[in-house]
């Protein structure tokens, strides 16, 4: 049977091209993502192995707090440096200081963007050569406060050279420094595309750290001392209450490598989801191809059975074909994936070098491709084995069967279950929405053959009316094989449904934000520090804005990760950090501008006071007058505990959301943090002053802060909308792969159907159907199938989109919005996808020789 399979495969190679592509594309994407991840992992492994090559131990704080950007670790007291240096076996030590810094280029634009790409570091220059992975290529190390060194990558990008004066932005200021040296990292200009600025230690502490604190202390041991012994010796030398831990060089390397891997794994999973969507769509395409091919070979199968092939052998023959397609498709797909990984690697500026092709990744991608093909081919293979030998002598009738009654019943049950799940999830605000979504999708898949006739008839009616005979024939052809039509449409349904879902979700989120701003926010401007809060505006900016004559209310707001203990230790004295959470800093003005109402107490926020939202009051059992312990990392008064009293409880159930769970007064905040900065400053103008009049004044105040932006409320909405659209576009872009595979499926179904209908098409041409009428009929057939698929997708998107938005109403989704125009465009585009897919089959059908089709020979 293997020979039969091979021969058939070769005979039908063009018919199988799209099947093959459906496997290969999905595997290419999956393989590309896996290889890219492996390569990036290896790159970072190498990078950190280099960074810590000569580091034998690191002394660092035990305390960490989690934030949106990963864990943040507290710093260590600079005075520990001498104690560490004095420990047995220590050859050299260096305190490290590191934070955010951005070089401003000659055009006044900040270089790099840590929110979107590689980090932008500012650090102290490490005097100890063994502990410093950077080497000077030009000039000298920074010694006095006004001097900096930058990496060669940044120097090349900006055109700065030794001797230039360069502006550098740090967390709350932009200052100019003399460039005294240029460094490189090993053999590369800059590690992982990051930008690096180095000052002397005191200046680095002032700008990106805090005076008398180090991020950590790096240690080089004496020759012959093991890292473990060294760490133990340092541990012994340090006081027990120092709140620090000692890790070996090997440990810190592994830890950093695994942190990076974990962060990368989110990205990998994100992309793999789209690869899986593409492969699921591929299953439909492959299933359909095999079904059609088996149907067309009914006589051949029957003949095999008649001459003595067993059912198992017929089934095996089809499955062997599937294995061959799966293997060849997957292997070629994986090779294409290597190309994709190379391409993406260069986009991501990975250091040039060979890709990391790990056997596990190869195996995962290829085995997945193979499984997908086999799963898809199983039912067609089983059907092939059921062909009775007698079928060899019969004419093959048109298969008109839609969904069987049982299938319909089960499908309807799933649909009902899906609707119930989504509605229940929407009302309860829980994950039942997702469960319902899956059930609904399965239900749609099951009832689709049953829906194919009525829905296609409906969709085809205007086509038949407008396009005359060609339209009517197109409609009838869609109806003639509901199972085939629905399997083709379902592939497109998945892609279109997901795209539509994200469109609905995004539109609802935007509408919710707009409404929240319109209904509750009474301000006119938002001054944003930029870069997602990594850099802030010094408190003086808000003060300066407040002094402008046109400004009525100025409300600075800041956020920071912190430890909050809502139930202070009863035994008194001992400091318990509590859970880490976000704490906001604001004043009464913010509550006014956000239209937030106090249920109890007030929002004056004097020293020692905290305002909490209703939800926190309920969940933590806090009432007015209760004490809460709040401490920040490196809190200058941590030892003495910061106890604040609940002075107000506010209602954040309005669509605007609130400021935060815990809102601390600005005075307390300033006392606790060395360099307090505002993340955003909200401004309300005096009545009668227009936005246009006030904007230049505000712009002037923030001008020195390169990343800061003055935005009117409308601009602010657009900015948020733009950020949301960026993610929407990314997701839609990735879903296009699935849509493309579905388009291949349409092309395949149409092409195979045309082959099947050769005689019929020949007859039509003989009795006077013009070539363009025939092309038109075939194209409209594809369009109707596509629109059918996208209508199913829309049903899914609207139901699940509604459910998800309603379920998230407490997370700020106040409005469910259907972007009707966009969705109509989406359906039209889906129709165009069908049209495009049918172009080649339609053209070929119209060029077919009539005589070949009608003559009996």
């Amino acid at each position: 049977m293997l020979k039969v399979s091979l021969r058939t495969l070769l005979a039908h190679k063009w018919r199988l091209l799209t099947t093959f592509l459906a496997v290969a594309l999905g595997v290419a994407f999956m393989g590309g993502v896996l290889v890219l991840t492996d390569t990036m992992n290896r790159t970072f492994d190498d990078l950190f192995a280099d960074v810590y090559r000569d580091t034998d131990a690191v002394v660092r704080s035990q305390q960490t707090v989690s934030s949106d950007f990963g864990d943040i670790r507290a710093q260590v007291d600079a005075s520990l440096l001498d104690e560490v240096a004095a420990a047995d076996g220590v050859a050299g030590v260096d305190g490290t200081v590191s934070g955010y810094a951005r070089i401003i280029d000659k055009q006044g634009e900040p270089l790099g963007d840590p929110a979107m790409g590689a980090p932008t570091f500012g650090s102290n220059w490490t005097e100890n050569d063994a502990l410093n992975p950077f080497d000077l290529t030009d000039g000298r190390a920074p010694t006095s406060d006004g001097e900096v060194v930058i990496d060669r990558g940044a120097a090349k990008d900006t055109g700065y050279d030794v001797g230039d004066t360069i502006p550098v932005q740090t967390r709350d200021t932009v200052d100019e420094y003399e460039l005294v040296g240029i460094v490189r990292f090993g053999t590369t200009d800059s590690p992982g595309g990051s930008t690096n600025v180095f000052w002397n230690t005191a200046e680095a502490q002032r700008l990106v750290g805090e005076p008398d604190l180090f991020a950590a202390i790096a240690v080089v041991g004496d020759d012959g001392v093991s890292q473990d012994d060294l760490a133990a010796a340092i541990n012994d030398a340090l006081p027990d209450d120092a709140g620090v831990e000692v890790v070996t060089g090997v440990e810190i390397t592994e830890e950093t490598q695994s942190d990076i891997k974990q962060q990368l794994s989110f990205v990998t999973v994100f992309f793999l989801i789209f690869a899986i969507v593409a492969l699921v769509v591929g299953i439909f395409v492959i299933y359909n191809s095999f079904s059609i091919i088996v149907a067309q070979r009914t006589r051949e199968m029957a003949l095999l059975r008649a001459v003595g092939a067993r059912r198992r052998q017929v089934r095996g023959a089809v499955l062997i074909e599937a294995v061959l397609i799966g293997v060849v498709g997957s292997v070629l797909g994986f090779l294409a994936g290597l190309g994709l990984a190379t391409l993406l690697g260069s986009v991501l500026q990975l250091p040039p070098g060979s890709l990391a092709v790990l056997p596990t990744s190869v195996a995962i991608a290829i085995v997945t491709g193979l499984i997908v093909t086999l799963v898809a081919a199983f039912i067609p293979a089983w059907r092939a084995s059921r062909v009775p030998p007698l079928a060899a002598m019969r004419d093959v009738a048109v298969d008109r069967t839609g969904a069987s009654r049982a299938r319909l019943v089960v499908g309807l049950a799933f649909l009902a279950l899906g609707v119930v799940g989504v509605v229940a999830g929407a009302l309860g605000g829980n994950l039942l929405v997702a469960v319902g979504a899956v059930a609904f999708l399965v239900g749609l898949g099951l009832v689709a053959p049953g829906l194919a006739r009525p829905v296609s008839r409906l969709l085809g009616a205007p086509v038949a009316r407008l396009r005359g005979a060609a339209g009517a024939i197109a409609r009838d052809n869609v109806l003639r094989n509901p199972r085939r039509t629905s399997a083709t449409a379902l592939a497109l349904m998945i892609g279109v449904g997901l795209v539509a879902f994200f469109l609905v979700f995004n539109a609802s989120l935007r509408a919710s934000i707009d409404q929240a701003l319109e209904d509750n926010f009474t301000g006119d401007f938002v001054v944003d520090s930029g870069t997602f809060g990594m850099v802030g505006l010094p408190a003086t900016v808000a003060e300066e804005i407040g002094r402008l004559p046109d400004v009525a209310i100025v409300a600075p707001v800041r956020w920071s990760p912190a430890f909050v203990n809502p139930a202070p230790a009863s035994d008194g004295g001992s400091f318990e950090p509590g859970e880490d959470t976000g704490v906001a800093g604001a004043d009464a003005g913010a509550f006014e501008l956000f239209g937030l109402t106090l249920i109890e107490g007030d929002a004056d926020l004097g020293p020692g006071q905290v305002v909490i939202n209703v939800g926190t009051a309920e969940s933590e059992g806090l009432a007015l007058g209760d004490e809460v312990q709040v401490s920040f990392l490196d809190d200058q008064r941590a030892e003495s505990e910061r106890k604040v009293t609940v002075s107000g409880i506010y209602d954040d159930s309005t669509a605007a959301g609130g400021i935060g769970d815990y809102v601390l007064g600005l005075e307390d905040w300033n006392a606790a943090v060395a360099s307090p900065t505002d993340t955003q400053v909200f401004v309300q103008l005096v009545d009668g002053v227009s936005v246009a009049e006030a904007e230049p004044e505000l712009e002037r105040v923030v001008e020195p802060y390169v990343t800061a932006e003055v935005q009117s409320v409308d601009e602010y909405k657009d900015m948020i909308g733009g950020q949301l659209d960026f993610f929407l576009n990314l997701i839609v872009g990735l879903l296009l792969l699935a849509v493309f595979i579905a388009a291949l499926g349409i092309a395949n179904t149409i092409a195979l159907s045309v082959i099947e209908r050769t005689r019929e098409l020949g007859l039509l041409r003989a009795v006077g159907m013009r070539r363009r009428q025939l092309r038109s009929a075939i194209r409209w057939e594809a369009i109707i199938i596509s629109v059918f698929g996208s209508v199913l997708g829309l049903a899914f998107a609207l139901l699940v989109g509604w459910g998800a938005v309603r379920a998230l109403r407490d997370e700020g989704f106040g409005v469910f919005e259907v972007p009707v125009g966009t969705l109509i465009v989406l359906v039209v585009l889906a129709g165009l996808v069908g049209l495009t897919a049918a172009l080649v089959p339609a053209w070929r059908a119209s060029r077919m020789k009539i005589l070949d089709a009608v003559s009996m020979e």
Partner: protein
Amino acid sequence: MENTSADAPQPPTRSDAGSVGIATTPAARAVAATKVFGHGDTAVVALDSVSVEIPVGRYTAIMGPSGSGKSTLMHCMAGLDSLTSGQVFVGDQHLGDLSEDQLTLLRRDRIGFVFQAFNLVPTLTAIENITLPMTLAGRKADSEWLDLIVKTTGLGDRLHHRPSELSGGQQQRVAVARALASKPQIIFADEPTGNLDSRSGTEILDFMRRAVREMGQTIVMVTHDPVAASYADVALFLADGRIVDEMVDPTAERVLDRLKKFGE
């Protein structure tokens, strides 16, 4: 061309039609029609300078053993295939002057077809199949004419059934009705009874003869069945790509006798 059967008795309707046919342009004609398949050593001459006229209002049968070129002649005269040299006309229209699209329109509007099998579009009902050429043209069928044809088919209540629900004979009657529906100048039938049992075959042949005698249609039928040929007014005999004989008012016996000579 010689009429070897001039002395045969003529049916009463024939002389009427004949007198009209002589006075007008033939329904179709071929002039030195030559068709060669392939080239070089493998070239096969299917039609060897055939000249023939198909008179209006007559039922003409084209006979001949397989490979004689009878199907090729029909295909070329119907605009389904092109000649290597020579000319074919439908009415006074020279087919060689027409583009592919013009040929399609000619087939749609002026020619009717009945094939041996696969005559009907499986997704269309019987009546939709009958009116297909008009639908393709975006025209309404002449309802009186259509009623007449439909009545003649005897399909009655099966008009809204799809081909798969009709018997082979019924399917061929639908095909003949389709060929008649647009009142074409000429109908080409390619072995219309080839796939039918003899009773259904007789029905079709009767139907076609009535279309000629009672409705004044012109039919050219390719067949190798002497019984089928006996329904025609004239039988042309082809062998090796040439017309070798013509028989007026053929009977099955005479046709069979004539065919036997090919074997000798």
